[in-house]
């Protein structure tokens, strides 16, 4: 099972993934790159990042907050 620090780090990482799926910092931008708005490219890339993050999560930390609750109770 992962450490307590890592448990919170994964929770924060999930928050970050959700927070930046829409690139708020590109608000109002209409720059086109390779035919599509740059903010759409960000989103597509971000979803790929999410997929990799989920892969890491399933390998390292699957079960946190669910099957590790007994030790702490």
């Amino acid at each position: 099972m992962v450490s307590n620090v890592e448990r919170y780090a994964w929770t924060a990482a999930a928050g970050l993934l959700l927070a930046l799926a829409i690139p708020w910092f590109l608000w109002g931008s209409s720059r086109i790159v390779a035919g599509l708005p740059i903010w759409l490219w960000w989103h597509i890339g971000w979803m790929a990042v999410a997929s990799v993050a989920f892969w890491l999560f399933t390998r390292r930390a699957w079960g946190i907050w669910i099957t590790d609750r007994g030790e702490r109770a």
Partner: protein
Amino acid sequence: MTAGLQLGIVVGYLLVALAVGLVAYRLTERTAEDYFLASRTFGTVVLLFTVFATLLSAFTFFGGPDIAYLHGPEWILVMGLMDGLIFAVLWYVVGYKQWLLGQRHGYVTVGEMLGDRFGSVGLRSLVAVVSLFWLFPYVMLQQIGAGGALRALTDGVVPFWAGATVITVFMIVYVVLAGMRGIAWTDTLQGAFMLVMVWAAVVWVLAIVEGVGTINQGIAAAEPGFLALGSEFYTPQRMLTFAISIAFGVAMFPQVNQRFFAAASERVLKRSLILWPVLVVLLFVPAFLLGTWAVGLGVEADIGAGENVLPIVLDQFTPSWFAALVVAGAIAAMMSSSDSMLLSGSSYFTRDVYRPLVDATISERREDLLGRIGVVVFAVGALAASLWVEAGALGAGSIGAILVDIGDLAFGGFAQLALPVIVALYWRRTTQNGMLAGIAAPQLVYVAANFVPALPTAYYGWGISIYCMLLGLVVTVAVSSVTAPAETEDAAIYFEELSAE
């Protein structure tokens, strides 16, 4: 010629689905767990695509491109955040824990899972009744969509009532026979088919107009600023309200939630989670871009008068057989959402209303039979209501706009269940009274806000569903804090038992 071809393809699809259903029927055991959950045997591909195809209602296929056509491609971000990420996190937070509990205790519905832990038949039935209340109009929505699509396809030769009735009768036969296993198999075929078709459509359009540059110039000329992120329609508040309330609603929609129980193993859940965001992007980006590109291509679609932009684009830029395939696929998408809903609606009724309240000693075989009868009653009831509504109130409106309106209302209604359930799954001190109050209060406020004309449905740009979700969270925690657990409660089911392994 096109209409005949499209009809032929729709009928062909129905026959393939029926054949799959028959094979599934021959394979099933006559038990409720097998009928409703395929005995919890889904592998990665089937689980992934059955959840995916279940999510893709008419709302995604006709409503989504229409919104991207009217307001811009930001809809991709809204749906990506909603279905690709928030739902994926809930896949773990709600889905994995539910799956574990289902494996240990044989739960078939979320109401059953809550009723067992909180020792309350009332809670179990409340969750089922609330769910059926929102599910029923949503099934109607799919029937109205299918009836309208068949009417448009045949230029009125097949009237609305006939189209909706034929589709419903077919679904009844199919769902009664096939059960969860057959539905999931056709979902898999259909999800893969739509993915291929949507990409083929994009390539086709790009080949004909010689690149996306031409389209972008057209958009810039027709609607300057259309591609800039954000607009009067896409405010941050509205985007987040849609994404959050629909994602939480999806996770509690019976036909989606129930699929969390059906995975064969942890490995299946893990792999599906990893592939999920990629699958979502692969479908939504091309589907909604086609809607936005219609603006630059000079395609005229009168959404307000009931037209949908996607079929019009396909008609103008692809051969008629291809357009027919995609439209048939979209009708199939409506049906695959509806047949899953019928099955889940029936399981909620037999499992959480009939069994605990009427006959607790019902045998497995009889429950299986009752489940099949429930499908018929549910579908016929929804059809009668659909025909009644269509005859009176819905004459002039746009199918797309109505789909989005009612669809959003039902999703918001289901979203109200999510936070109390999550609190129950993760906070040991949640009590029976806390759950009853936390589920009932936001439902009442949400319904009142949407159906009492004097009450506004948004404050400071945020939709009422978000406020109601917060209300549900606060009420669940507050009431749990001040009440003692009932004697029948058994919190260990959700906590110590799971970590004992």
